[in-house]
């Protein structure tokens, strides 16, 4: 066995065992519930009705025929794709601005991070009031000039847009912090060399900084994409899934099936779909990231 200088003998002998608590924790808190969810999705467990304990794929077959489920996927994709785009663009712009363009304003990083620490329900309540015309200071301001701001939360795409805006506000700091860390890992020698060769700041950004940020951007986009698949508090508080069912994303639909309709197994099948969907996306993003890193 390899010997470690300066480490207590008791740990030298049993260092493999130090992993046991972590393995145990992952097993108990991640693997077992996940396996439970998979098993549940194959049953017909309903909170109210009896359970015949037969296993099968009926829930997954039902998913393919459930128009509400299929429509929830398109809502989820709209929320995720637009949310990730706005968060990554805004977070990156602020990070680059603070690190490269006006570094003397770095002290503002703390202020930009504030939305990230606001609880999701509070974020939802803040934006609900901003998007409710009778409560919103924005509407009150424009009313002075006789301009009527439309009620976003009462139209299909307006409500989706409102949730994307609220999520962007709450989550861009996460992107900003990761991109700031990535920027600090890029040697300033490259910028200086390009500058000596006559490159402008924009050229340095597009030709040097951005290509070097690609792996970080890809990973942060993946993190955010997976997070946006789990949208719940914003929808629950801001729209209740409305108008009609316009903002019922897949995760929210799983909640409706599980807790409103008591179809626990069907809710689990929807959760399995989300898990597989996120895993597939992660796999391809990780592959793309590996290619970028190797290049």
């Amino acid at each position, binding site marked *: 066995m390899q010997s470690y200088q300066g480490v207590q003998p008791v740990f030298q002998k049993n260092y493999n065992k130090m992993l046991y608590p972590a393995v145990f924790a992952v097993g108990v808190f991640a693997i077992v519930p996940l396996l439970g969810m998979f098993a549940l999705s194959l049953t017909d467990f309903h909170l*109210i009705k009896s359970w015949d304990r037969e296993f099968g794929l009926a829930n997954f077959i039902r998913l393919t025929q459930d128009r509400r489920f299929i429509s929830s996927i398109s809502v989820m994709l709209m929320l995720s794709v637009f949310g990730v785009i706005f968060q990554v663009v805004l977070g990156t712009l602020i990070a680059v601005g603070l690190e490269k363009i006006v570094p003397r304003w770095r002290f503002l990083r703390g202020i930009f991070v504030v939305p990230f620490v606001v609880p999701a329900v509070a974020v939802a309540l803040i934006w609900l009031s901003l*998007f409710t015309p009778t409560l919103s200071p924005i509407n009150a301001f424009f009313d002075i000039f006789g301009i009527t701001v439309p009620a976003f*939360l009462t139209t*299909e795409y307006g409500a989706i847009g409102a949730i994307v805006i609220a999520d962007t506000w709450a989550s861009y700091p996460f992107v900003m912090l990761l991109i700031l860390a990535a920027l600090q890992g890029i040697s300033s020698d490259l910028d200086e060399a390009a500058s000596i060769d006559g490159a402008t700041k924009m050229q340095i950004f597009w030709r040097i900084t951005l290509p070097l940020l690609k792996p970080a951007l890809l990973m942060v986009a993946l993190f955010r994409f997976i997070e946006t698949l789990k949208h719940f508090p914003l929808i629950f508080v801001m729209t209740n*899934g*409305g108008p009609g069912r316009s903002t019922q994303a897949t995760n929210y639909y799983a909640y409706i099936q599980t807790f409103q309709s008591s179809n*626990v197994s069907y809710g689990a099948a929807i959760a399995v779909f989300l898990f597989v969907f996120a895993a597939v996306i992660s796999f391809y993003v990780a592959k793309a990231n590996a290619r970028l890193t190797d290049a």
Partner: protein
Amino acid sequence: MKLNNTHHAAIGALLACTTAVPSAALADDLNVILFSMPYTQGLDQLEADFEEKTGHTVNIDVVGQDVFESRITLSFTGQTGDLDVVHTPVIQVQRWIEAGWLQPITAAVDAMDTKDDILSGPLDAYLVNGERWALPFFAETGMMAYRTDLLADAGYDQAPENWAEMLEASAALKANDQAALAMRVAPGQGFNMFVYPMIMRAYGGTFFADYPTDLTPNMNTAEGLEALDVYASLMNDFGPEGIGNFNFGEVAAAMQSGQVAMIVDGTSIVAQALDPDASQFADQISIAAVPTGPNGRSPAIAVHGLGVPADAPNAEASFAFIEWATSEDVLTKIALMEAYPDFTRASVAQNAEVIAKYESIHPEFLNLKVQMLGDAIGHYRPLLPQWPQMGATIGENINAAVNGIMTYEEALETSDQDIADIMAE
């Protein structure tokens, strides 16, 4: 130091003690879970009173409604026995009984000396299959609040008596550049489906052909269509901007800030509009009965109570808490402590301090509330185990119709189909 077997044994024993001692100390504790509303917030502050009176210790956990739903579902399905008393909305009680999540408390209720003091409507709302399943602490009904000055400007010296007059008055108010009426439109069985049936039933619309004997879906009728047309017109043509996503909070705020001339909502929301501490125009707001329609008046009703979970380990102690929490003494204290809770005992309504408090917002508030409770029908929202799911689905369709995502016919037809699907499951 190297640890030997003796050390391990000692550490194990110490850990066992540190975990076992609190468990033993908490063995007789009562765990009560409630969701947030004025009564439950008030009850939370009276924990010490119960402990002093009964010797039992109690942990009252007041949480948001979403957290409540998840927590009790996990507790009930897991049969963990960790809850001794549970907040029991009447709208859920049939579902919970069918699932076997509650235990009856009939004998204990019948043995109560003060049972006759509890308002019979709310009390009997928990009488299912000949058994009592909870004691009520809250009974809210529908009511209208209106701005006397704005209606006078529009040519009305009193509130509209029926929904047709409501449309006329709303048009007159709009002509004065005033948003007329706010009601809940946000989708949900406790949101738009708390208020919409007031119009639907007034026009003769029903959820079923002949509840409870014939449960054939019956929303897509001429009466149902007319009711939905009235509701959508009132909201879209005469309501404030953004009404399509209004819930009770926005409705209350719109009236308190003077942005609408009338609201029709629950008594707790109307009380907030009348409360001079919360409402900018309280002195110009009066109250009226819920408007009638061709089929009469149908005020909303919502009842909340306290029940004992089926797996509660000490049913006797659980009921002791429920009896205390719904007693005249506690309900009176909460009626005086909190804003304007909807209590369920006649004696509380006769308490001089309570009367003075409610008369301070409006001399007729308590009388009108009693009148509306008398007019309300118990099955205003059908008392079926499937209702929570059904109400949520219908609420989505009605909300879609008001917001122009579905036509009125489509919304009612889809609702009938959804009801049929849910009943067939």
